[in-house]
């Protein structure tokens, strides 16, 4: 089940981020990167593979956790060359996709590290050259 309005919103965020990244002012470019990283994270989360509606947290304590998602067959042996589930027809999962969430969680933290680093870089550039204009910087560097 897709969500057309969410897709539209993500697309608009992408557009705004792109516009900002193309600016001459370094600080504006960093703000643009921030907008872009939000857009990317949302994009990944919204394209999860399942149409379930529950948060990916197993609530029952029962045995092997197979009550919510059953009947996959795993042939995870390298010698057979298969490392993926094989599903019966009509297999349904109640959860939303946990994998994309795990990926995005990593991405959020890394984008924080990146933002911090380039902000300090911008600050040092300003200190050394007295400007945040890319064009002027190129001229100063010769």
């Amino acid at each position, binding site marked *: 089940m897709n969500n057309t309005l969410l897709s539209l919103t993500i697309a608009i965020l992408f557009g705004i981020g792109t516009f900002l990244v*193309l600016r001459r002012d370094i600080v504006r470019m960093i703000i643009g990167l921030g907008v872009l990283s939000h857009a990317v994270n949302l994009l990944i989360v919204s394209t999860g593979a399942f149409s379930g509606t529950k948060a990916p947290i197993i609530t029952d304590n029962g045995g092997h956790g197979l009550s919510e998602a059953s009947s996959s067959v795993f042939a995870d042996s390298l010698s057979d060359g298969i490392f993926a589930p094989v599903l019966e027809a009509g297999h349904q999962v109640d959860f939303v996709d946990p994998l994309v969430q795990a990926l995005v969680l990593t991405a959020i933290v890394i984008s924080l590290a990146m933002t911090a*680093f380039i902000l300090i870089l911008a600050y040092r550039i300003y200190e050394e050259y007295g400007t945040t204009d890319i064009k002027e910087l*190129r001229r100063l560097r010769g």
Partner: protein
Amino acid sequence: MDSFTAITIAVFLPFVLAGILPAVEKVLKDKIGWYASAVALLSLLLIAQAAPEVIHGETIQKSIQWLPSLGINFSFYIDGLSVMFGFIVSGIGVIIMSYSNGYMSKKEDLPRYYQQLLFFMGSMLGMVFSANMIQLFIFWELTSITSFMLIGYWRNRPMSVYGATKSLLITAAGGLFMLAGFLVLNAITGTFDIPTIMNNESIRELLHGHELFLITLILIFIGAASKSAQGPFYIWLPNAMEAPTPVSAFLHSATMVKAGIYLIARIHPIFSGTDAWFIMVSGVGIFTMLLAGFLAFRQTDIKGILAYSTISQLAYLMTMYGYTTHHEPGIGVAAATFHLLNHATFKACLFLVAGIVAHETATRDITKMGGLRKEMPITFIIASIGALSMAGIPPLNGFLSKEMFYEASVEMGHLLGGPYSILIPALAVLGGVFTFAYSIKLIDGIFLGKRPSKGLPDHIHDPSMVMLAPAIFLVFLIILFGVVPSIPVHNFIEPTVSGILLEEAHLHVKLWHGITPPFIMTIVTFAVGILTYTKYGKIAEWQNRFNARFPWISVNYYYDATVENAKDVTSKFSNRMQPGPIKTYITALLLLVIILFTVPAVLLAPTLIPSDLNFDIPAYEVIIYLFMIIAALGAAVLRKYLPAVIALSGLGYLVGLLFIYLQAPDLALTQVLVETLATIIFLLAIARIPQKFREHIPSKTLARDILISVAVSSVIFIMLINATQGIIPPFESVSHYFIEKSLPLAGGHNIVNVILVDFRGYDTLGEIAVISLAGFGVYNLVNSRGEDE
């Protein structure tokens, strides 16, 4: 300790002890060279431990599994050939590293120098004991790399850099040809193990009859020839003389350049006995022997003469290993092996003398020298014995192996019959004549004649024993091997030759054989050699004139042209690809993304806008979308930094809120925390950056940027609404695995958490590494402030 363990330690000890060398240097200071020689001595003793078994004719091979699925094992093969090379490498290593204590100034970067020498020695030992081709290749290229570092030891001399680059380009590229040859050989024989191919008659027959036989041989031979400076590849060796002289003595005369010869000897049992082997190996050998011997005449640098003489002497070895017929696969093997050992002694000795002379006179130009025999009597005697051995004067060891060379040449000519029975011995004598002439030139030019009135320091004297003793030891070996040849022959040559010919070998080498054809050839060599020496200056002049007139008849000319051209093309290419302004790159990237998305979408999707759009969305979510767009627009249009940053962080919190509706509680939590931190960092940073610059966007730029943004936006939108439409049939999601195995395998209920810390724990480790690296980066950036104020 068994031999395999001893050899393994001998190979890896130099690497390990070189690794801790900088720490040892803190204690020993400028005595660090003695530490390095002690390491070499340890390797030598370890190899000596394996020697007795080999001298008794045994061979030892042992493997440790490495990549068994690819047939690549870590495997050492200990036979006569490898032990002899092991002795040469570690023995000359001890001599060179001791000598360096006197040669290298205390002001030099000694740890780097000795570290690289030890790395080289370890690589070279690893190479000669390798039984597996891939392992051999790795050590082979390691020797090329360490050689590159050592030639370029004086980093800010342009000629050092030129020489180092040249040697790396030629030898490392040659190594790649060799690797290709090994792969073809593996495809034919099904194994990477050299002894297996060597000892198996049926595999060798299969190989000899195979249609890829010739191409395999050519590929491997290119590797050997480039390493040993044969044929057109000789050009790197003269430029390698920019290295410190002990390095030239060690790498570029006694050991590394012999790696190619070693390879030829190693594969001799596999490929010899064929016409191709004789034509290629001996053909290139004879050609190089004559060319390099001849070209030595116009050299005025002592090390230049020695470099050309090394090329020519290596060509002798190639020629001899190449002598083969169908019935007699190894006519020159014994002679070549003996000459190989002898060359290591006399050439290393001559290089040490060159180092001494350059050290004392501060020049290497032979035209500025002369008459130094009175001031440097000991050096004079050492140099004379070394040079006379190279010239082939009895009773020195060079005489013996040259006699054997002539003998093998006569036999080869005889077996071929026809004009060859004269031609091959004649060419061999011609090579000997050149050798004789430049050997005499070394003695005469430096030590005899009159001392030039100017250009030399006033007081020249013999150096300290630190530099003399290693050379004296080599002179001792030269005389010993000449007078009592049974010592080297019994201990080194016979085991080696048996290993190559795969049969028991018994040699009888004596100083006096009676008047035989080789003896007559030696007499002819001396006579013509003396005659040639009287014309030495005229020949050199003619060569210079020829070179000035036809500069394009030279391999160097083409090498330089190619390298210059390559530099030109690559700099043009990179200037075009990297014009500078960051905007160009971003635009190019975005355009590429747009193309990559649109082309398949247009080609594959039936319609770009699918029919089942879903607008059935709760109102509260729609309100969040609206606010998000407003916040993003705010970040874009607000002109001051502070409001724009606040708008951005507002967007971040809205995203956090949205994550809750998207059933992602962990993400919401993280997003809120991170956004708070990011906002604080942002505010701290912009508080220090006054907003002096205001961009006035010209309407043309504005229109273009909006166009790009809208294009990106549309592409993303179309991609997203099509993402669930199954343009490409989806594979089953790997998420099924995580959902089902989360509880039984990891015991966690929160699947996202389990994925992060269990199933994909390495991702999280990487993430932590990124955070800490960014932290270090920030710290250093802040600390780098104000250094020039």
